[in-house]
């Protein structure tokens, strides 16, 4: 049987588009020219948007669903939807970049974003350990560069380096875990691994392998106790990079791991009442993240660090969605991750725009945003309330479907139920620190001499788009949830 390269080429058209787009952006910018940095940025972003749009269109017509190329890839609803989601989030990130970036090498920035996105889309469809690892690493390497992209600020270099070191170590753990799995089952194909594990049953070595994989996963999702990089990176990285790290990267990571854990390692899940496996570990990580994220966020004075701890708390809830995905499928998790990504991109977008006309580190730097730019304040209002989970915004529906899914697993008096109750209770705590942001933006008067903020058109479009999507998905959840029926 000949290797079906043609099939592979068709399935990977979005990735080809993205990589081609990245190269095109670099090539167009290569000749020495007299264009201003602003013009170069806009040209690069336009090319980048074109590449993303083409990739999106190819993704819609991706061909026959099912495993491809000998099971290396799989085209299923989760893969397709995740691809579409990360492409959309990348579009928003580019919009913010176009409006705010004053970096010296705009084409390289856009090219890195496209390369990272190609990694994300590949993560979404990978069904084999090796490809999964490669996709994850190609995305991560781009993100390390993006985090350290602003060479004029030492904080950015610091963020990039920390992210890289932390990511490198986690990747080592992950790879070690993968190799142990390979040693135990003799395969890197998820279906084969699944069948083998069902035969052999649990062993201490398997537990070590699983926890190693979960270290990699916990790092990607910024879940406690593997979260320590997040606050520093969110604080130091340029705002568009932070937006991408916090949104698209998370969505793709969760899609990859939920595919890895349930269809691949489902036989080794153990259960929540004590049998060894990865399920109790995920539950512990989830509980720790919810607790630590929410309480640590309360004490933050820096708005980016606050968003980082809120991300840790949300990671806990997302892991709860991973647990529940075994029963109700990945739809709820996807919905939560995508809408969370939209709100986070939006929040970082607002920060990016505010930063154009001054500092935006402390929460008090947002004071009087309502007077300085009603558009930014209005969008921030939607994003923060969605993060807090207020109906009718998408954040509420996301929490609702994930928590009901967890409660279905064994009622309220089961470990999953306790986690859901914990998450619901701490949502109330979370409301406090979210409202602190809104209080500064909407109630407190602006600082003396604070000028009105002009919002560049691409950023305004991206922010309004994100806000509109949050409201739309919140009011009409079936648009997304219906995909997974």
């Amino acid at each position: 049987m000949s290797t079906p390269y043609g099939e592979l080429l068709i399935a990977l058209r979005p990735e080809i588009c993205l990589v081609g787009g990245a190269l095109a952006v670099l090539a167009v910018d290569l000749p020495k020219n007299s264009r201003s940095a602003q013009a170069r940025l806009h040209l690069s972003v336009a090319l980048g948007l074109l590449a993303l749009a083409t990739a999106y269109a190819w993704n819609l017509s991706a061909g026959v669903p099912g495993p491809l190329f000998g099971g290396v890839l799989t085209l299923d609803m989760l893969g397709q939807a995740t691809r579409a989601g990360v492409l959309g989030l990348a579009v928003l990130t580019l919009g913010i970049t176009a409006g705010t970036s004053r970096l010296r090498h705009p084409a390289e920035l856009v090219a890195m974003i496209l390369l990272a996105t190609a990694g994300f889309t590949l993560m979404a469809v990978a069904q084999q350990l090796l490809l999964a690892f490669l996709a994850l690493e190609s995305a991560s390497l781009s993100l390390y560069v993006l985090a350290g992209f602003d060479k004029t600020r030492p904080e950015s270099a610091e963020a990039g380096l920390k992210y890289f070191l932390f990511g490198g170590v986690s990747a080592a753990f992950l790879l070690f875990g993968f190799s142990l799995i390979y040693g135990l089952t003799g395969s890197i194909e998820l279906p084969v691994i699944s069948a083998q594990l069902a035969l052999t049953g649990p062993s201490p070595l398997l537990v070590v392998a699983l926890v190693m994989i979960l270290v990699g996963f916990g790092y990607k999702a910024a879940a406690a106790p593997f979260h320590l990089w997040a606050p520093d990176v969110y604080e130091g990285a340029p705002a568009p990079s932070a937006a991408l790290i916090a949104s698209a990267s998370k969505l793709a990571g969760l899609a990859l791991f939920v595919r890895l854990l349930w269809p691949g390692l489902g036989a080794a899940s153990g259960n929540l009442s004590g049998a060894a496996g990865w399920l109790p570990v995920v539950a512990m990580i989830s509980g720790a993240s919810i607790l630590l994220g929410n309480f640590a966020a309360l004490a933050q004075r820096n708005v980016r660090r606050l968003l980082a701890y809120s991300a840790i708390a949300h990671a806990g809830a997302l892991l709860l969605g991973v647990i529940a995905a075994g029963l109700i499928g990945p739809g709820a998790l996807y919905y939560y991750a995508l809408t969370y990504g939209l709100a986070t991109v939006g929040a970082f977008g607002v920060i990016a725009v505010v930063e154009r006309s001054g500092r935006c580190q402390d929460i008090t730097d947002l004071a009087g945003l309502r007077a300085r730019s009603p558009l930014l304040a209005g969008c921030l209002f939607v994003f923060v309330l969605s993060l807090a989970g207020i109906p009718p915004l998408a954040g509420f529906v996301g929490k609702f479907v994930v928590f009901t899914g967890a409660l279905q697993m064994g009622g309220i008096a089961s470990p999953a139920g306790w986690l859901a109750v914990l998450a619901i209770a701490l949502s109330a705590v979370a409301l406090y620190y979210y409202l602190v942001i809104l209080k500064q933006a909407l109630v407190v008067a602006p600082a003396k001499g604070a000028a009105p903020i002009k919002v560049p058109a691409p950023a305004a479009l991206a922010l309004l788009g994100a806000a509109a999507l949050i409201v739309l998905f919140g009011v009409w959840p079936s648009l997304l949830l219906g995909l997974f029926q």
Partner: protein
Amino acid sequence: MTLSAQYLWLIPALPLAAAAVGALVPRTGRALAAGAAIAALVASFLVSCVALVTALADPAAKLVYNFAWFDLGAGVFRLGWLLDPLTAFMCVMVTFVGTLIFIFSLGYMKADANFKQFFCFLSLFAAAMLGLIVANSLLLLFISWELVGLASYLLIGFWFHKPSAAAAAKKAFITTRIGDLGLLLGLLWLYDSTGSLLFFDGGAGVLEAAALGSLAAQVTVGGLVVSTAIGLLIFCGAIGKSGQFPLHVWLPDAMEGPTPVSALIHAATMVAAGVFLIARVYPLMQADALLAAVPVHALTVVAFIGAITALMGACIAVAQNDIKRVLAFSTVSQLGYMMLALGVGSWVAAIFHLLTHAFFKALLFLGAGSVIHAAHHEQDIRSLGGLSAKMKVTFVTFALGTCALVGVPLFFSGFWSKEAILHAAHGWDVSHLPFYAAVLGVVLTAFYNTRLMAETFFGKPRSPAAEHAHENSPVMTLPLVVLAVCAVVLGFLNTPVWPWLDTMLLGKTEVHGHSLMEGAGLMGLSVVLVALGLGAGWALYGRRTRVSATAPDPLAVKAPRLMAFLAAKLKFDELYDATVGRLNSASAAFADFLEFWVWGGLVTLLARLGEFTGLVNRETDERTLNGGFDNVSEQVRGPGRVYSRAQTGDVHGYLRFLALGFVVLVLLVVMGGAK
């Protein structure tokens, strides 16, 4: 040309888009906001006309389009649109009257600084009202129902710098919410018993035989049938929204809003939503009709509430002096007539009266607005007078509107629709009391309207404002003329000789009305009644007109205590203040005590605990870990290279922590699994 039910959403969506435009343009974008609002409503009107043609092609059909909104447990929650003659007539009426009132507002609100906001709110209202009409789901209807309430709140309080307007807006919102609570409970109960909120769904809807049969077969508290109980709860919503006794108190106060608002929302459309609601769920209200052994039928309650409201509104209107308040109580009274018609079994008569009333009452309110605008916001009829010569168009159109409201025979729409209601009430076999109340109401209506006309337009001007009044610009008078024409001709759509509207609404194909002779006796009676009311009004107020603004009212001279009682609106406000208001204050004080001392203490305690935990977390996260390694890095840093900070210190700590986390997790799982 036909309209598929799938595209019905266009009708509310167009004004909604106009509202968005109005919300987004800056305050100076007056022309854009108003233009978008009017254009959208005209477009909506055209779509509604197509919908009407479609619906009338097959009046018996219920064209529905249902779609999934979101998944709920194992099932799917669905919403939908519904097109039948009732929907279509209502849509055409709302968009047509709405367009005229929007145009009138161009002139009336010309000088207002918040002009564009006004049109934004008006469009929002129109969108919500139309959404309410096209809904095929009680939930969608309820959402729109609440949105019209919100729009009404915003518009009553449009001049919020006036404390009375702000208070009236609050009162309207809260009072109607009391009724809405009933509606919400009814909705929940209905969903609980039938598992659906769609009206029509190919046999599975709540208004279709299967669901109605099961609802009518269950008995609940007090021997009530479930369908009766749900029907009465839904009727609570209608009581609140349509200003029925005992929740009518908000409607007169709502006249604090700009007059076009009173015309559109508090006369023609929103207040009629309650009547529409009951007509829409009529199969449910009627489900208990054939059961003999029930304590009460839902429609009997509707009939009595309607009759009480009709009579009470007419009584109070006799003693009011504010031109808009007279009209407001007349609206309360006319809504009572509509409810009465619903209650005695003739929902088509109710809808007929709703449609004719919408036109002539909008006309009267706009006429009042024209007077108020010309007389520099003088609204007291005692201070007006003598306007018939100064404002000819307003006078003639107002007079036509009054004739329609009073029910002057044969040539005015109000006559035919009121006749239909009296006929239905007369034929009701449960009780004749509502009929007598309605008859008395007819006399009073003729009486107080004669008083209103005489005081406002005849005699001599009794204030400088009335002295200097002159006719308004065509942008305000033209809508009056159009509405006046409608107020006359609309009646001919449904006469006993040619009951076209009846057959369309009931979905019959052939026309067979009761003969003219059959109703002749009643018709003669009502001619006599109207003549009696007009004569009495003329004798008291028309023959010798008022000489000065402070002269006593002739009726008040004869029966001072009765008039004072009526002028105080039967003291309903005082009664509610003394009972509900007091109770509310007391419970608020108690809740305040609980809140401040008990819950507040607990929350403070929890908050402190949370803060403490947060601090501890931050300390461990940043001081111990970061700080410790920061110290190390400080020493390593040596001559102070900033760059080194990123390379050393923190990251080592982080990675150690990561490894520690890994080891702890492995140990936990292995030990947990081993036991």
